């Protein structure tokens, strides 16, 4: 079956440092989505990537979808305390949506 790993599981950074989380699949993905979940909150959609090699930016966040559509990354430049939370990748499968295990980001002011 499809195996998608999300790494790292945890990341602790000093405010102002950069942060990256990765999702790697053993098979080609049709699309990938990224969600953010604040502590005590629910997952909130950030972005969807569909095309091979796609790069999208949202202010300090940069999302990439690999050329082979087997990996994706979320990079945050100059983290702020408001970036704290868990970031999940998710991928579609026959209408369903499966989530990775997430990367929990903590930011030290």
């Amino acid at each position, binding site marked *: 079956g499809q195996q998608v790993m999300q790494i790292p599981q945890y990341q602790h950074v000093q405010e102002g440092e950069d942060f990256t989380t990765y999702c790697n699949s053993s098979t080609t993905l049709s699309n990938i989505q990224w969600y953010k979940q604040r502590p005590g909150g629910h997952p909130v959609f950030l972005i969807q990537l569909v095309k091979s090699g796609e790069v999208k930016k949202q202010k300090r966040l940069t999302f990439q979808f690999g050329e082979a559509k087997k990996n994706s990354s979320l990079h945050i430049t100059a983290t702020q305390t408001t970036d704290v939370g868990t970031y999940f990748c998710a991928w579609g499968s026959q*209408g369903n949506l499966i989530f990775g295990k997430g990367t929990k980001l903590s930011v030290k002011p």
Partner: protein
Amino acid sequence: GAGVSQSPRYKVAKRGQDVALRCDPISGHVSLFWYQQALGQGPEFLTYFQNEAQLDKSGLPSDRFFAERPEGSVSTLKIQRTQQEDSAVYLCASRRGSSGNTIYFGEGSWLTVV
């Protein structure tokens, strides 16, 4: 409604009790999902509806779990004879179309089984 609404927000059940969790999706949304999220874990897929049809229930952990969406709108997740390992947040999400679009989550129903 404006967003996905879930009730109750918090439920404490005694082991062996039955519980019912309700989800009101965004009006007009075709797809509806139920996820289970244990503390510190990612959302684990339970089941998926397209309108009133339950297209995938492969994530339901046992036959104690049952979900329905009889009129293609409101959905109910029922857990019979609750056990301590059922303690989790149960998240409902909806999507406008049948695939590909963003899914929108509700605030979740926090279930504690004592």
